[in-house]
């Protein structure tokens, strides 16, 4: 009896430790090791990739509801996904900006006029790179993806990729696998977490425990191929598909652990994907496919640019954010905001605080357009206080008050200045 109880305790301790060890192991792996490796068989498959994708293979009136090949679990799954769509519509982090939503819908309709009225696209305010397609025709795009995409053609690539998952029924197959491995009773909560509608806490837990977004490498390649065919047919320059993945590789070098776990670990490795897309781009059927649309894309983001940048700073990964901001500076992407954001990183990020660098970045932001970023002079003032320079702090707060007399904290700032 005594032995049984001892073994029972020992087993519990071992199970607990092994689950901890597993998580620590995942977190301590370098990114390159987490990304799937390319096998010899994969390479053989890749050589044939360029001949596999034709627009004629895609259905023009696909509707999962009337699909005769529907799986047994699909009805239940459909209901759960419908619930997620209802939650999406009322979610606090749903981006409702009309201008941006109209623009993204317009890009979708260029990529796929057939499904223009069928697919619902929702922009979710989560500062990580991700997009997902649900089996009921709902697409989510996270704001972290919008900040990393460089132009309209790359947005069309992402949309085409997600749509291809839907048309090739990958999402059903992936969710069916998830039901089998996770259990139907818990899948609703995980789906909700995966949608980015929950807290960052839920996302982290999902990333640590779930292999949810796994479509399988071949499904991903297929979605890449058909996605590229779709965007090129819409008139977009096909080379931008590879450039999108190049961008992701570049900004993944200091990728947050959360992003690694929720997106990249289940996708083919970036370099492999980029190489394949470059091959396909050379032979894909073109339809005056030269449009890149950088100006159009930047203009569409303008109404939410402040929140995109602020949320990137808030998400808390100093090195990955800094790397992204460096890339955005090279792209000439809203420089006032990006330099301000770099200043905010140096002012607020624990273990990386450097007030001189913060001021240096704020000053560059100031040169571009001091009035555009509302909190610029307030942040400069706060930084000078930390540096013990009260005169410069007062001067900055005065500029803030002059430039933004209707700011919601104007009386608080004035009262604070009197005590300096």
């Amino acid at each position, binding site marked *: 009896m*005594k032995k049984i109880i001892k073994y029972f305790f020992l087993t519990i301790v071992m199970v607990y430790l092994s689950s901890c060890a597993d998580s620590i192991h995942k977190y301590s792996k370098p990114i390159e090791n987490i990304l799937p490796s390319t096998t010899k068989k994969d390479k053989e498959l890749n050589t044939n990739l360029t001949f596999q994708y034709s627009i004629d293979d895609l259905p023009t009136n696909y509707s999962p509801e009337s699909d005769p090949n529907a799986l047994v679990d699909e009805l239940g799954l459909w209901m759960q996904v419908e619930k997620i769509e209802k939650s999406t519509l009322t979610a*606090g*982090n749903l981006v409702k900006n009309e201008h941006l939503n109209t623009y993204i819908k317009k890009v979708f309709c260029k990529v796929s006029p057939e499904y223009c009225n069928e697919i619902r696209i929702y922009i979710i305010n989560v500062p990580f790179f991700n997009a997902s397609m649900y089996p009921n025709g709902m697409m989510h795009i996270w704001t972290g993806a919008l900040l990393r995409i460089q132009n309209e053609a790359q947005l069309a690539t992402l949309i085409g990729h997600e749509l291809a998952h839907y048309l090739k029924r990958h999402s059903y197959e992936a969710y069916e696998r998830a039901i089998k491995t996770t259990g139907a009773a818990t899948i609703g909560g995980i789906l909700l977490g995966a949608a980015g509608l929950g807290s960052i806490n839920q996302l982290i837990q999902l990333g640590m425990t779930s292999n949810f977004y796994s479509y399988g490498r071949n499904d991903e390649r297929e979605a890449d191929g058909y996605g590229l065919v779709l965007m090129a047919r819409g008139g977009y320059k096909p080379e931008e598909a590879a450039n999108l993945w190049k961008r992701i590789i570049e900004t993944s070098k200091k990728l947050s652990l959360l992003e690694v776990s929720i997106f990249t670990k289940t996708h083919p490795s970036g370099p492999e994907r980029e190489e394949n897309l470059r091959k396909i781009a050379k032979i894909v059927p073109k339809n005056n496919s030269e449009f890149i649309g950088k100006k159009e894309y930047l203009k569409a983001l303008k109404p939410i640019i402040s929140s995109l940048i602020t949320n990137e700073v808030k998400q808390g990964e100093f090195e990955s954010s800094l790397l992204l901001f460096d890339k955005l500076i090279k792209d000439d992407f809203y420089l006032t905001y990006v330099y301000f954001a770099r200043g905010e990183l140096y002012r607020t990020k624990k273990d990386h605080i450097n007030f001189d660098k913060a001021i240096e970045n704020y000053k560059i932001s100031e040169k571009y357009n001091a009035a555009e970023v509302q909190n610029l002079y307030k942040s400069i003032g706060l930084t000078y206080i930390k540096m013990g320079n009260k005169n410069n702090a007062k001067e900055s707060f005065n500029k803030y008050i002059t430039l933004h007399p209707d700011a919601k904290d104007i009386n*608080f700032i004035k009262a604070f200045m009197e005590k300096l």
Partner: protein
Amino acid sequence: MKNTKIWIKLSLFILVIGILTACKTFTLVEKDKFTDPVGMNVKPEINWNEHKYTNKEYAWTIDGEYLNQIMFISAGENEYFLPFKNKWGVTDPKSPQFNKTVTLLEIPELFVKGIEFYGAQLTILNIEPVYFLDNNGFKFNFTLVTEDGLEKLGIVYGTIVNDRLYIMSYVGAVIEFYGKGVNDFIQMAESAKL
């Protein structure tokens, strides 16, 4: 045999302790009586229910914490407030942290960061300078939408006294529940003493 009994008793004891500590317990805070959550002396005019998260964070509610809630928060040097914890209960180092170099101006943005960690979207409406706990402090109103779309309103009072942060916040669902506690919260915040 004797040892076996001891092992069984010990197992049961651990199990009971585990269950008890996992349960959230509330105690009644009676109206018209002075009480001092986290060192802030207040006198409620209606009955509340109190839950102690830690010695530095107390929550009061009328209808349940999701519907209306007062938070009493106190944080000293290098202490976290509104700590965001992982599934093992370990505080995420990115949670808002107070130290004596943090100025009063920075507290509202740290508070917002702490709340948003939990998936809510918070918008500050206005920030005003006020006396709170007989010291220079601030008060701000905010709107909040939870991750599942519930709209809430809230008020926060804060100050720093002797290198220690004190915050009293109230948040409630816009429909019905905010109104039930807001007046009592404001009278407590405006008369609170250390």
